């Protein structure tokens, strides 16, 4: 087996194993750590697919930002990390059936489909080409992404505003003291 295949199978094994742990782990914090491992493995797959820029973006956004946010969320809702609480619902059997069935269908059709493989050379994947595409062919989606991010930002701010959100330890339905009162007191 050549190095490339070896790298692929190693990464595939890492991703699949980590992904299984993500969905089955009893401790949600462990799930988050396995998720990070799986996402890092996906970055490795991007490298194999000659998309190093995308790999870096994957690590920056998923590992550095999204996973971290999830860990913060787990922190805020800490009691759920307790092992004694059940973490799966009654649909385990159905879920297994559905996902395995889906997998069978997809994999069967994948191996049946002849894909139009092209052997043309790839431009270097360091981002320059992506930048040009972003600002020429994909200008509109590019700008819309900024609007989407703005929407997400405003949404998050509105939902998680300080006068709506209380510290975890405080009893529900008691408004926080105003900052000014705090200073005066």
């Amino acid at each position, binding site marked *: 087996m050549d190095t490339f295949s070896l790298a692929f199978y190693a990464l595939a094994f890492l991703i699949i194993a980590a992904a299984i742990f993500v969905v089955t782990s009893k401790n949600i914090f462990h799930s988050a750590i396995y998720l990070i491992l*799986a996402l890092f493995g996906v970055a490795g797959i991007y490298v194999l697919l000659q*998309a190093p820029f995308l790999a870096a973006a994957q690590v920056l956004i998923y590992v550095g930002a999204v996973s971290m946010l999830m860990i913060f969320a787990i922190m805020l809702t800490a009691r759920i990390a307790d092992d004694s609480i059940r973490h*799966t619902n009654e649909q385990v059997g159905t879920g297994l059936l*559905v996902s395995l069935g889906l997998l069978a269908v997809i994999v069967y059709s994948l191996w049946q489909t002849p894909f139009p493989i092209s052997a043309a050379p790839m431009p270097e994947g360091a981002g320059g080409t992506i930048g040009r595409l972003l600002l020429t062919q994909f200008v509109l989606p590019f700008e819309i992404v900024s609007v989407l991010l703005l929407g997400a930002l405003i949404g998050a701010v509105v939902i998680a505003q300080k006068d709506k959100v209380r510290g975890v330890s405080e009893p529900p339905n008691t408004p926080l003291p105003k900052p000014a009162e705090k200073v005066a007191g």
Partner: protein
Amino acid sequence: MAGIGLTHYLTLSAVVFCIGVFGMLTRRNAIGVLMSIELMFNAVNITLVAFARYVTPATVTGQVVAIFTIAVAAAEATVALAIVLLIYQHYRGIDVDRVNFMKW
């Protein structure tokens, strides 16, 4: 790179996607559901980049779309986790099977 071709990547992607589906269906915890969704997003991204690599290597369009997907996933995670926080405030828990205020 003999041996490893487009189909291998797509198979990997399918496996990860189905693990994500399983997690999404069976997790009780809202954050766990979100993690499963992130797995599914990543599976889709693998297909996009794999197609970009093997079907249209001359243009990197697939990679650009994958970047957009990552951005959308991040935006989704931001809002979803803010909602999780709100649900936690309201219910003192984030068991999605017990969150039923949308039913009425």
